[in-house]
């Protein structure tokens, strides 16, 4: 079946945390490359440790890949939280600068309502950003990512090659990034300085 399966080996290594200890250096290196900051990577590795130790015991097929995936998701979660915070700041500035209604006219939403509003706005923003994509990119994105059709099917529907679909999707993601950055949602490409090009082991002193 061609599936990597080293569940036995993982079980012997003392669960996820044992496995994490064994792959610590690689995971740290990955995290540093992924988030472009050695300090943040250390931090994330701690989070990963906590998550791994909370994980119920039991065999995990291909635990190493599982840990990398967890690490990758941790970075994503953190980025999302950062971007949401950034967007909040941005918006607050917008509203104060734009001569919006006096603050006392705006009831303080409860945190729950706040999160809900944010979610709603995010959805609307995304909706608009997708609507503004170039037609081919938009169609490919809708078919593949929103309707969940496999890329091969998208290629067939659009009458183009697989690599054509890939190109459309790449263009879509690039435009989406820019559109969201314009809305103050994502910081654009340059916000997290990446300082470790060329260095094979990212360290904080390699950073500008």
């Amino acid at each position, binding site marked *: 079946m061609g599936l990597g399966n080293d569940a036995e080996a993982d079980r012997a290594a003392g669960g996820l945390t044992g496995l994490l200890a064994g792959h610590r250096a690689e995971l740290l290196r990955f995290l540093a490359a992924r988030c472009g900051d050695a300090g943040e990577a250390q931090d994330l590795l701690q989070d990963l440790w906590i998550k791994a130790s909370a994980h119920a015991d039991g065999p995990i097929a291909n635990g190493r890949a599982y840990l990398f995936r967890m690490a990758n998701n941790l970075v994503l979660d953190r980025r999302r939280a950062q971007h949401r915070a950034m967007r909040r700041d941005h918006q607050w500035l917008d509203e104060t600068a734009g001569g919006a209604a006096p603050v006392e006219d*705006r009831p303080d939403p409860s945190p729950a309502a706040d999160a809900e509003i944010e979610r709603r706005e995010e959805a609307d923003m995304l*909706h608009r950003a997708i609507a503004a994509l170039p037609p081919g990119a938009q169609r490919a994105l809708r078919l593949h990512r929103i309707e969940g059709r496999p890329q091969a099917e998208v290629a067939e529907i659009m009458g183009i090659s697989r690599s054509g679909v*890939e190109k459309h999707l790449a263009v879509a993601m690039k435009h989406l990034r820019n559109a969201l950055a314009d809305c103050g949602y994502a910081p654009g490409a340059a916000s997290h300085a*990446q300082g470790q090009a060329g260095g094979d082991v990212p360290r904080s002193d390699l950073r500008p």
Partner: protein
Amino acid sequence: MNRDEDGIFAEALRWHADTLRDDMDWDGFTAWLEADARHAAAYDAVALGDALIDEHRGHLAGAAAENRHANDDADAAPVPATPAPPVVVRRGWMRWAGMAIAASLAAVLVAPQIMPPPPQVYTTSADSRTVALEDGSSVLLAPHSTLSIEGRHQQRMALSGGAWFDIRHDPSRALAITAGGVEIGDIGTRFDVQEAAGKVRVEVAEGEVQVSAAPLAQPIRLVEGRGLVYDGKGGTAVVRPLGAEAIGEWRQGRLSFDGAPLLLVAADLSRYAGLRVTVAPGLRDRAFSGTLVIGDGEAALRDLSQVLGVDLRRGPDGLVLDERR
């Protein structure tokens, strides 16, 4: 330069798709990230964009009409050239939501006279989420699901995906939940609803509900300990008894099936275990009975493929359950 950037994005997309695979080359990915500072930035953008789309898929896909209803101006002008109207709309909405959630009776009475409350839309990604209703009822929304709540008394809900409902019985309120072609009404109970793969499952743990759908000759009364499977394609519904412990079992990290078509099993695994699973056309109606533990989705899937004697292989878009060759 520009072309180059598109190339980087295409690579980032490919890596991103691979992260779901067990045989993902994490060392190669690390090396790719290290090779050029733009790589990590592009990957970040791809992963974030993807997560956003995932989270709002319900809204983006099916909810065009609902969006129009809630936010006429924004939808009528999809090109964000004129930011002013959406801002006005949003502020009004914010005011309403702030008051409603504060659960002040005065606010609830006043706001609807100004304008009908727009739907509240809740969408989950990888985690489930509890939605508290004003009357003390609650809904536990499953991962990758969307629930929209409308009406002055939160009496109209639409679900895509799965949810566990714990609803206080209130005869004065005609609560109705729509999910994939069925309407669930006359509710006062604890029950689970799963809408996936063209089928809707309603399972009652306590109390009773009434399920209706256009193709059904009459509404079906569903009591405690019974489950109904509605097949949207055939317009048929089957009712069968269930073990109480099996109802809403996803909350405990398990999924049980009793003669369920494989397509449905795969859809559930996709939702609850965060996998992308497709089923070869010839296998979609293969029946599966048994319990899967969803903590490690891939392991569950592997168990499933072994039990059924089918192949599990990697496709370009995730895992594929395929006929054994």
